[in-house]
C-alpha cells in the first residue's frame, strides 16, 4: 500500500476516473433505456393500443351493421353495405399494422393469429348469407346467425384480448419510463462526494485552496446529474399528462363506443328474433347501463377530466352532448319496444332503422358514435402530443451526460496529473 503522497494521489485519481466513468455509463444507460420505453409508449404502445381498440370497435360495428342490414325492409341499403365494407377494410388494414408490431409470441400474437385466420371465414359466411338473403331464402338468416356467432364467440373476444394486452403493455412502458433513475443518481452523488473529498485532501496536503481541474470536474458531474434529473422530470410530467388527459379518456371512450355498437346490435337482433323482452333486451339494457350508468363509461370519462385544460373542455362538451343523445336513444328504444309489443312490428322496425327521422334509434346511435369518436380523437391527440413532448425532453440527454462525464474524467486527470508531476 502506497502511503506516500504521490501514491495516494495516484489512488485517488484512479477512484475518480472509475467513478466518472461509472456516472457517465449509468447516466447514458439510463437515458438510453428510458428513451426506448418512452418510444414504446409514444411510437409503439400508443398507436398500437389505438389500432387494437379500432379493430375491436370496427368488428363490433360490423356485426351490428350486418344485423341492421338484415332487418331493413329494403334489400341491402347501399349505405349500410358501405359501412360494413369500411369496417372490414379498417380491420384488415390495422391487422397488418398490429401484426408487424406486437411481440412475436404471447397473448397479443395469438389474438392477431385468431383474427387473421377467422376474419376471412367471417366475411365468407356474411357473403353467403347475402346471396341467399337476396333470394329471400331462410338459409341467408341461418348463415347470418352463424357469422354473428363466430364474431361474438371468437373474433370479438380475440380483439378485446389484443386491445387489453396492448393497453397493458403501454401502461407498463409508461411506468418503466417514469421510474426514478436511482442508480445513475446514486453513482453521480458518490462521484460528487469523492470529488469533494479529493479536493479537501489536496487542500490539506498542498495548501492550495483550489484545484482547477477537480473543481471543473465537480461542475461537470453536477451538470450531468442535473441534466439527468431534469430530463427525467420532463418525461414524468409529459407522460403523466398524456395519461391523465389522454390515455384514461381514450380507454373509457373506446369502451363506450363498443357499448354503443353492442347496444345497436342487440336492438336489431331483438327485432329480428321477434323476441321482445328476451335476452337481447337484457343485453341492450346492460349496454346502456355501461354507457349511462352512475359508474358508466361516460360518467367515468367526465369524472376523469381536469378543470381548465382546453382539450379536457372539448372532451367534456362532446361527452355531455353524448349523454343527452344516449338518453334520447334510450327513450326511442322504449318507443320501439312499445310499438313492437303493441303489435306494430313494421312501425318498430321503421323507428329502429329509419335514416331520416331524427328520433330513429339508428340516427341517434350514429350521432352518439360520432360524438364519442370526436372526443376520442381529442384525447388521443393529447396523448400523442404529450408522448412526443416526453420524447423531446430526453433529446440530447445521453450525449450531454456522456460528454459532461468525459469532461469530468479529463479535468480530474489533468488536475491531479499536475500535482503528481510536482513530486517527480
Amino acid at each position: 500500500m502506497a502511503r506516500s503522497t504521490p501514491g495516494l494521489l495516484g489512488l485517488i485519481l484512479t477512484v475518480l476516473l472509475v467513478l466518472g466513468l461509472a456516472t457517465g455509463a449509468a447516466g447514458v444507460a439510463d437515458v438510453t433505456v428510458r428513451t426506448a420505453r418512452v418510444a414504446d409508449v409514444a411510437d409503439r404502445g400508443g398507436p398500437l393500443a389505438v389500432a387494437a381498440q379500432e379493430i375491436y370497435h370496427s368488428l363490433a360495428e360490423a356485426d351490428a351493421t350486418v344485423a341492421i342490414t338484415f332487418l331493413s325492409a329494403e334489400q341491402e341499403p347501399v349505405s349500410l353495405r358501405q359501412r360494413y365494407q369500411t369496417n372490414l377494410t379498417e380491420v384488415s388494414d390495422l391487422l397488418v399494422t398490429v401484426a408487424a408490431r406486437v411481440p412475436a409470441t404471447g397473448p397479443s400474437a395469438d389474438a392477431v393469429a385468431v383474427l387473421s385466420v377467422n376474419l376471412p371465414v367471417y366475411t365468407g359466411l356474411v357473403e353467403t348469407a347475402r346471396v341467399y338473403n337476396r333470394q329471400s331464402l331462410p338459409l341467408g338468416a341461418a348463415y347470418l346467425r352463424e357469422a354473428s356467432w363466430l364474431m361474438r364467440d371468437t373474433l370479438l373476444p380475440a380483439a378485446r384480448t389484443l386491445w387489453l394486452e396492448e393497453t397493458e403493455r403501454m401502461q407498463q412502458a409508461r411506468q418503466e419510463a417514469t421510474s426514478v433513475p436511482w442508480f445513475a443518481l446514486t453513482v453521480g452523488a458518490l462521484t460528487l462526494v469523492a470529488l469533494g473529498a479529493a479536493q479537501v485532501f489536496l487542500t490539506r496536503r498542498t495548501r492550495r485552496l483550489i484545484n482547477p481541474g477537480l473543481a471543473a470536474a465537480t461542475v461537470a458531474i453536477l451538470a450531468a446529474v442535473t441534466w439527468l434529473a431534469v430530463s427525467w422530470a420532463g418525461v414524468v410530467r409529459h407522460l403523466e399528462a398524456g395519461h391523465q388527459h389522454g390515455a384514461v379518456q381514450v380507454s373509457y371512450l373506446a369502451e363506450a363506443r363498443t357499448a354503443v355498437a353492442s347496444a345497436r346490435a342487440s336492438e336489431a337482433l331483438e327485432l329480428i328474433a321477434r323476441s321482445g323482452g328476451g335476452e337481447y333486451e337484457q343485453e341492450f339494457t346492460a349496454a346502456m347501463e355501461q354507457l349511462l350508468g352512475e359508474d358508466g363509461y361516460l360518467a367515468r370519462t367526465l369524472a376523469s377530466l381536469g378543470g381548465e385544460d382546453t382539450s379536457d373542455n372539448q372532451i367534456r362538451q362532446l361527452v355531455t352532448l353524448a349523454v343527452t343523445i344516449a338518453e334520447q336513444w334510450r327513450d326511442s328504444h322504449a318507443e320501439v319496444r312499445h310499438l313492437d309489443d303493441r303489435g306494430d312490428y313494421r312501425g318498430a322496425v321503421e323507428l329502429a332503422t329509419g335514416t331520416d327521422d331524427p328520433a330513429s334509434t339508428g340516427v341517434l346511435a350514429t350521432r352518439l358514435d360520432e360524438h364519442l369518436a370526436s372526443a376520442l380523437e381529442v384525447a388521443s391527440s393529447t396523448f400523442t402530443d404529450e408522448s412526443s413532448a416526453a420524447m423531446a425532453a430526453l433529446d440530447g440527454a445521453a450525449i450531454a451526460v456522456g460528454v459532461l462525464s468525459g469532461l469530468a474524467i479529463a479535468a480530474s486527470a489533468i488536475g491531479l496529473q499536475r500535482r503528481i508531476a510536482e513530486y517527480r
Partner: protein
Amino acid sequence: MRRFRGLLTLGLVVVLGLNGCGAPEPMPHRSAQPVPEPRPPGVVDPVTQTSAPAENPSCEDPRASLRPTGEWGPSLDRIRSRNRLVVGVDQNTYLFGFRGPDGQLAGFDVDLAREIAEDFFGDRNHIQFRALTASQRVEAIRSGQVDMVVRMTTMTCERWQEMAFSTEYLTAGQSVLVPAGSPVESIDDLRGERVCAALGSTSLSVLVEHPAGLIAVGAPSAVDCLVMLQQGQVAAVSTDNTILAGFVAQDPQVRVVGEPFTDEPYGIAMAPDAEDLVRYVNGVLERLRADGTWARLYDRWLAPHLGPAAPPQPRYRD
C-alpha cells in the same frame, strides 16, 4: 500523461458507445392455427337423449280435437280485449314461416294464422307474430306469451299433456335429405353417420331412438341442419318431408331419399285450458276447408313442391 489520455479516450468511447442502436427485432414467428370450422350457434352434437316424458302416455287418438260449438269463453275475451291475436310462428322455415322479400313473415303457417285473425277481427293484420324455435313452443304456450302456435307442430299424445291441439291441418312424414351425389338411399344406410334434426322436434327423438345406429345431431332450427349439410358437418338431415321440400327449393344440390317413415299430423297448439279458443279455431278450419281457402294456401305454398293434396279430414272427440 499518455496513459491517462488513453484511458480518457477509452472512457469516452465506452460512455458514448452505450447510446448506439439496439439489435433488430427478430422476425415474428407464429404457431399454426387450427383451421376454423364455424357452426351454427347452439348445436348439440351428439344428442343421446331427448326430453320425452318418462312414461309414454297413450291417448285414444292424437288427431281428435274439440268440436266447434260457437261457445264463447275467457280465452276469446282476452284476445278480443287485447285487439290482436298473438301467434307463435317459425321465421326460418321456407314455405311455412319465413321472412319474405318485403321483410314481412310469409308462408303456409303464417297465412293460416292470418286467416284466423281475419275471421276473428275481420282484418288479417290484427296479429302479432312471435318467432319461436321448436324447443320454445311449450314454454311460450305455458307462460301465455302467445295465444297459439302455428308452427309445423306434430300432434302427439305426449304433447297433448302440455298443450291442446286444433284439428289436423296438414299431414307430414319424416324423410331423409342428403347431398345430390350421396349414395344413401334410406335412413338405414346412415349407420355411424351424423344426421341432423331440430332440437325439440319429434324428428330428433325418432333419430335418437332409431335402430339404424346413426349419430343424432340437434340444431336450434331445421335450416341450421341444411347449413351444416352444406358445410359437410353432417351426412344427412332427417325431418318432416314438408320442411325438406323447402330445403330442396333453396338448394338444388340436395335431394330427398326414400318414402316418409313416420306419420306427423300438424295441429295448431294452444293452452290446455283454452277450450273455447280450440273450438273456435276448429270452426275456422272447418270453414277454410269448405270454402277453398285451404286449397288456395296449399296451392300457393306447397303444391309445387309436395304435389297435389286434399285437406286432412277433421276428427273430433267432442
